[in-house]
């Protein structure tokens, strides 16, 4: 059966299908809710509210995990595990820190564990690479090269330095917030940042000539 575009327009019009209206209303309603409201509903067992929180913070967690591990299958697993840990600790989360910061802390710790696991794996199986790149197809070829290059530069840093770079430069946390998340003094964040940038400059500087003017 062929339906033209108008059929769908009619179908999705408010008042035509009460069940659909209800679903759309609930969906919109959750988007408008604050973190605290969604958290309270999720604590009472509302799975849709937890799903709304996952969608809200997915991008932020992805930036942290992919920044730490690169584009690889493990990054997706660590991202999922971050939200599973959060789900299991829903009743313990008291809201002392912002939810985003809380999730970032979990993501960073799990990523650091994954780096340790990788190191052990590389020790036993030296052929395995640090990060297998699974870049989304939507990127342009020149972007893919640049992304690989940036991840190569980050990947050569020790995990402690990597965490500082990811939190400060990719996630955009302030120096103080970075220090709080990693539980280290601000001075240590500053010195690690400076050393990490000097190290990354050796890889990235040949490709920054044309970009530095803008």
């Amino acid at each position, binding site marked *: 059966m062929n339906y033209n575009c108008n059929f769908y327009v009619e179908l999705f019009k408010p008042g035509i299908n009460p069940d659909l209206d209800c679903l759309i209303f609930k969906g919109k309603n959750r988007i408008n809710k604050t973190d605290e409201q969604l958290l309270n509903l999720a604590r009472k067992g509302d799975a849709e509210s937890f799903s709304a929180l996952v969608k809200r913070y997915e991008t932020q967690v992805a930036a942290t995990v992919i920044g730490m591990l690169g584009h690889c299958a493990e990054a997706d697993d660590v*991202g999922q595990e971050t939200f599973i840990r959060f789900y299991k600790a829903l009743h313990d989360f008291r809201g002392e820190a912002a939810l985003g910061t809380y999730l970032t802390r979990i993501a960073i710790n799990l990523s650091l564990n994954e780096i340790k696991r990788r190191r052990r794996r590389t020790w036993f199986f030296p052929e395995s690479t640090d990060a297998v790149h699974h870049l989304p197809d939507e990127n342009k070829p020149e972007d893919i090269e640049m992304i690989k290059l940036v991840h190569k530069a980050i990947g050569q840093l020790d995990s402690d330095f990597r965490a500082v770079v990811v939190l400060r430069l990719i996630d955009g946390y302030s120096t103080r917030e970075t220090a709080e998340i990693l539980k280290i003094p601000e001075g240590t964040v500053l010195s690690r940042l400076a050393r990490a940038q000097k190290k990354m400059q050796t890889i990235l500087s040949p490709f920054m000539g044309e970009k530095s003017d803008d």
Partner: protein
Amino acid sequence: MTRKKIDKKITDILYRSFDDELTAKEQEFLANALEHSEELRREHQQIVAMRRMISEKGGGRFEPFFSARVMQRVNAIRKSPDRAAEFFESLAYMFKRVALVGGIAVIILFSIHFIQKEDNTHLASETVSEMTLDDVLGSAFASSLEEIL
């Protein structure tokens, strides 16, 4: 201060200027150094470009349907009860049963004890009533006692 030390100090302040608040003196020092050094200006631009590149290309996004994958795992957890809670629940259930059986056993033991005690008292009283002076004192002693009396 040697030239090398001055360079190191300027570089430190340059890097720190991106992530920390500089004092008025440090700001003036850096501005002055940038104004007079082509090399330092180039380095400043390179750091700016590098930081921009890392911030734009360093992150990423998960594969499509990430939230659906998470919710699949969440639903699996919701369906299978928590093992620790299950263990403590079964422990409490077992303790209740043990306590109940123990209570019944104690009541039974007490009952047996009392029944036996009552039997013994009854038997003892019956035995005492049927006993003669001969049984208690011995026949020889009883006969000699009778003679004296």
